[in-house]
């Protein structure tokens, strides 16, 4: 029995090590084979994607190694493996909720708190979906990926095997949600599959719901960059009222006012600034650049607030930022 458990552990460990890069590579090859990028991968974007896929690993690996090998043993010296008694499925549930809900908040706050937006902007500047942009992030956003440290702490406390299992499931769901292969489409096309679709699209991130989050437009019935923040579980968006389910895919992705910031600015803002004038990543750029319709809404609301100042409380402005 112990030999079987050891074997399963080794399989999970290998999948954890090689499974994710293999899945990304395999899907990437499929996407290119089907021509899903449709010549939407210009040179500048290629550099951003490649730099973001490779360079943050050089920062992140030493940071996690220091945290797990020095910080945790120093702070929790008497608590190593204290929770090894937790049954696998309970450990799985605890980590799945702790990890993914933490990431939901990390992600949502980067959209809703204006000064945080620029750390997450790189992930949204791609005008395409797929494996090429799935790892596209600002290095500082990646470094402070809060759930990595939470999960590492739970592993230290003895929940290592469930943590690896959650990571496998989560990587698969989030990778497939970013993919330009719409694997969920048959679930909407065939009526017999609709009940499964109903559960699936509320429970986990699908290409339809996550692509909507990456849309260039919002509030048009399909695109919704003001919500759909869930990574593995979409359930958080349902619970907190930040969900939009349309079963459709946006016509355009990215940021409407994006003009191709340099790869180094997208990777390492605020250390390096963009040379694109008016960009949110440039030295004199705005914290959040509003879309034209957002500016109009804001102007109208400000006008209404001024007019009603004497009568009562001002209206809350609602602007459109990604």
């Amino acid at each position, binding site marked *: 029995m112990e030999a079987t458990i050891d074997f399963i552990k080794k399989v999970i460990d290998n999948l954890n090590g090689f499974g994710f890069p293999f899945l990304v590579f395999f899907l990437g090859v499929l996407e290119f084979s089907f021509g899903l990028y449709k010549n939407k991968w210009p040179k500048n974007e290629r550099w951003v994607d490649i730099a973001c896929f490779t360079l943050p690993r050089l920062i992140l690996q030493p940071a996690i190694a220091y945290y797990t090998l020095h910080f945790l043993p120093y702070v929790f010296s008497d608590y190593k493996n204290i929770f090894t008694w937790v*049954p696998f499925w309970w450990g799985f549930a*605890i980590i799945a*909720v702790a990890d993914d809900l933490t990431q939901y908040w990390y992600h949502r706050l980067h959209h809703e708190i204006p000064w945080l937006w620029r750390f997450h902007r790189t992930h949204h500047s791609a005008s395409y979906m797929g494996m090429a942009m799935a790892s596209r992030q600002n290095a500082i956003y990646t470094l402070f990926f809060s759930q990595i440290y939470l999960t590492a702490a739970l592993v230290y406390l003895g929940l290592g095997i469930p943590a690896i299992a959650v990571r496998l499931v989560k990587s698969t769901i989030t990778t497939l949600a970013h993919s330009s292969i719409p694997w969920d489409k048959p679930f909407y096309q065939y009526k017999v599959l609709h009940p499964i679709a109903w559960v699936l699209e509320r429970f986990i991130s699908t290409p339809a719901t996550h692509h909507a989050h990456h849309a260039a437009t919002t509030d048009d019935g399909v695109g919704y960059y003001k919500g759909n923040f869930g990574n593995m579980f979409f359930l958080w968006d349902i619970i907190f009222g930040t969900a939009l389910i349309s079963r459709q895919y946006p016509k355009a992705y990215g940021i409407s006012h994006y003009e191709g910031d340099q790869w180094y600015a997208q990777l390492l803002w605020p250390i390096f600034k963009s040379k694109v004038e008016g960009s949110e990543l440039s030295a004199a750029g705005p914290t959040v650049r509003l879309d034209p319709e957002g500016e109009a809404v804001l102007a109208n609301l400000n006008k209404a607030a001024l007019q009603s100042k004497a009568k009562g409380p001002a209206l809350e402005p609602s602007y459109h930022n990604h």
Partner: protein
Amino acid sequence: MKIEPAKKQRIIRNVILSLFIFLEPVALMYTSFLISGQRPWEKKAQKEVNTKSLTTKTDSNNGGND
């Protein structure tokens, strides 16, 4: 640019709800133990006692040959 007050309020409300969600799997696990009468943490403690070295730590190998 500051965060809108309405948005701020919604975030605070949702964060409070999240704290309960974070605790939910742990609470459910202990409830299941309470119902089934299982006490897996005791098993672990027992196992540790059973596997404890019988060799005294006074020898030169410090119990390393167990």
